[in-house]
């Protein structure tokens, strides 16, 4: 129970196409996170699945049944909204009961389900309060509770943590993960925060401009991004890209000429790369470091972010901005000349069209 299949799903508002041919198969019990920059259509996709927006093309099926024409109320899904959307004039109890009353459930069962959800979410002591009298974190729990009592086929969560402060966000994130483990229901979670995506998801769907860029397990996306966009989006801080033209390609290494004319050698086995082709080489900041030997890429420090356990160095080399993360505390100041070294971890190479080539 709880599989959702999207086949060539399209959504447009008049001439504006918001979703282009979305194909996605969400398995029962899976935790899927839609991630992407704002305006990429991830929330629209969630609303389409919820039935709050009608699709203009393609087919949507829940548990194998076509639901294109089924109203939001009858799809058996529950949604947690970004603003929580609790009914301000009802108490917490009434908020939880509203959906159950509407489906004509007997009072005893409503009370039982509410009691169970309240215990699970530890909101029993403020069941008679109104949403206005609750803190942000408490409202969040009530919003999740309202979804839980429905015992839905799947949970849809639309940026549920974005209104919480940083500390609460981390703890609530863990609770949502625990909730998924306990309930074992399908959850679809929308966020623009790639950390939430990485920590929660069984599979991440990276979206851009109404299209799915890549679908995969968090570490798959991290290790093997299909294109430059996914590479830049997944991982924090984002990946360094060094752009340049291929000068020479011999077995196992290529020599690339960067924008400022400097050349460097990339140890990559490349398939079908021709001389003169423009490439961008992606290296995660974690794999850049300060050279011990003095050999490497000469760079100039622009900004230093000392985080205590590690230091983020914003540097400039080859006419581009590069980030490096080095463990421990380093005493560097802006303007200082350093030499950046690369630790030899697998690197990512993308062609002119942004697709991965290695």
């Amino acid at each position, binding site marked *: 129970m709880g599989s959702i299949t999207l086949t060539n799903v399209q959504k447009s508002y008049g001439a504006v196409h918001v979703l282009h041919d979305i194909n996605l198969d969400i398995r029962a019990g899976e935790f899927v996170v839609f991630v992407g920059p704002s305006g990429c259509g991830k929330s629209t996709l969630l609303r389409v699945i919820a039935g709050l927006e009608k699709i203009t093309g393609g087919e949507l099926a829940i548990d194998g049944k076509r639901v294109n024409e089924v109203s939001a109320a009858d799809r058996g899904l529950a*949604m947690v909204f970004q603003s929580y959307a609790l009914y301000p004039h009802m108490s917490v109890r009434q908020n939880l009961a509203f959906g159950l009353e509407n489906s004509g459930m007997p009072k005893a069962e409503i009370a039982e389900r509410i009691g169970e959800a309240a215990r699970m979410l530890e909101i029993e002591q403020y069941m008679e309060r109104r949403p206005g009298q609750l803190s942000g974190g408490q409202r969040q729990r009530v919003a999740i509770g309202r979804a839980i009592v429905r015992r839905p086929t799947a949970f849809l969560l639309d940026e549920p943590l974005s209104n919480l402060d940083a500390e609460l966000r981390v703890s609530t994130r863990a609770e949502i993960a625990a909730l998924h483990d306990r309930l074992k229901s399908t959850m679809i979670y929308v966020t623009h925060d790639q950390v939430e995506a990485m920590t929660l998801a069984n599979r991440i769907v990276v979206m851009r401009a109404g299209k799915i860029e890549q679908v995969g397990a968090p570490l798959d996306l991290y290790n093997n991004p299909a294109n430059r966009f996914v590479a830049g989006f997944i991982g924090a801080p984002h990946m360094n890209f060094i752009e340049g033209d291929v000068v020479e390609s011999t077995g196992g290494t290529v020599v690339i000429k960067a924008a400022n004319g400097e050349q460097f050698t990339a140890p990559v086995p490349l398939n079908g790369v021709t001389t003169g082709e423009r490439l961008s080489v992606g290296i995660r900041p974690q794999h850049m470091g300060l050279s011990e030997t003095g050999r490497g890429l000469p760079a100039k420090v622009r900004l230093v972010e000392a985080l205590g356990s590690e230091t983020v160095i914003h540097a400039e080399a080859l006419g581009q901005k590069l980030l490096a993360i080095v463990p421990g505390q380093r005493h560097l100041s802006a303007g200082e000349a350093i030499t950046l070294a690369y630790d030899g971890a697998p690197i990512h190479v993308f062609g002119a069209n942004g697709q991965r080539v290695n």
Partner: protein
Amino acid sequence: MSRVTQFIFRRRGGKGWHWTDIATWVWLIGGLIIMFGPAVWLALSSFKTPAALAEFPPSILPYVSQQATVQGYDKPLTLFNATMPDGSTRVLAEVRRVGTVAQMVDPKAPAEIIKVNINQRTPVRSVSFSTENYVQPFLHFDFFRYLWNSVFVTVTATVITLVVNSMAAFALSKYEFKGRNAAMLVILATLMVPLSVILVPLYSIISTLGLFNNLWGVILPTVATPTGVFILRQYMLTIPDELIDAARMDKASEWQIYWRIVVPLTAPALAVLAIFSVVWRWNDFLWPLIVLSRRELYTLQVGLNIYSGELNVQWHFILAMTVVTMIPVVLVFIFLQRFITTGIAGTGLK
């Protein structure tokens, strides 16, 4: 009490008088007089006798001239304070007035006529409330029948107004459909059309429907108010769409969304419209006057018109009944005005 005086007498500069303190007091007192002056004058005048109402210059308080029965005169005579040529003042009763000279007598020594210039005397008056202005209409005027008609018209029209207008506002604010803005524009455009323009066609419609001389004929044409739709729509636009989406996910029907989510959250705006509607319907005069021609159907405002005859206007009764008709409107305002300032929507969000 000390906190009240502290509140009233606190000044901006701390110790001295800042010019803004003076400006504030002038502004507030001026406003108080402008706003409450007419109402207070109306209320006090409603206790005046017809003679006191005709007096010029008019007084604020209801006074009656004192009269005394003097030996040798059949009718009671009006008492005056007269200033004598030697500067002393005496209380005298006026017998008659000839030109600028009044012939007066001392009530204790009625035989002697004293001539006094009319500028040298002022009437002896005392404050007196003539409550018969209120009692008489209740006894001889069908007040309770008119009151009932007015209450029926006001309550029914207000209830229908709230229901119909909030439904229209809900559709115009929360549903996307072709021609939504055009519909809103047409509704707003009817604001520009005054009643007198549509009076004749409206009359023929009501007459054809057989609602002439029927209270429903007064109620029905007034219930769809563009102002009401506009106020409610603007308020409903501030209710987040996510709430309605949430209700939809919660299996609420469109009626339940309207009745259980949108209407309770629109309560402050509904209260405002309720106040407006009550005041409008209660004070309606022209339309009920046209539709109702049988006395037992008159509303209060039309009923009051009985006192202004072609030749004789009984101001004392009109004023008294005006005060009575004002009371319900004032009460409605006092009880509902707190809703105007209370907004409960939005508290459950963010």
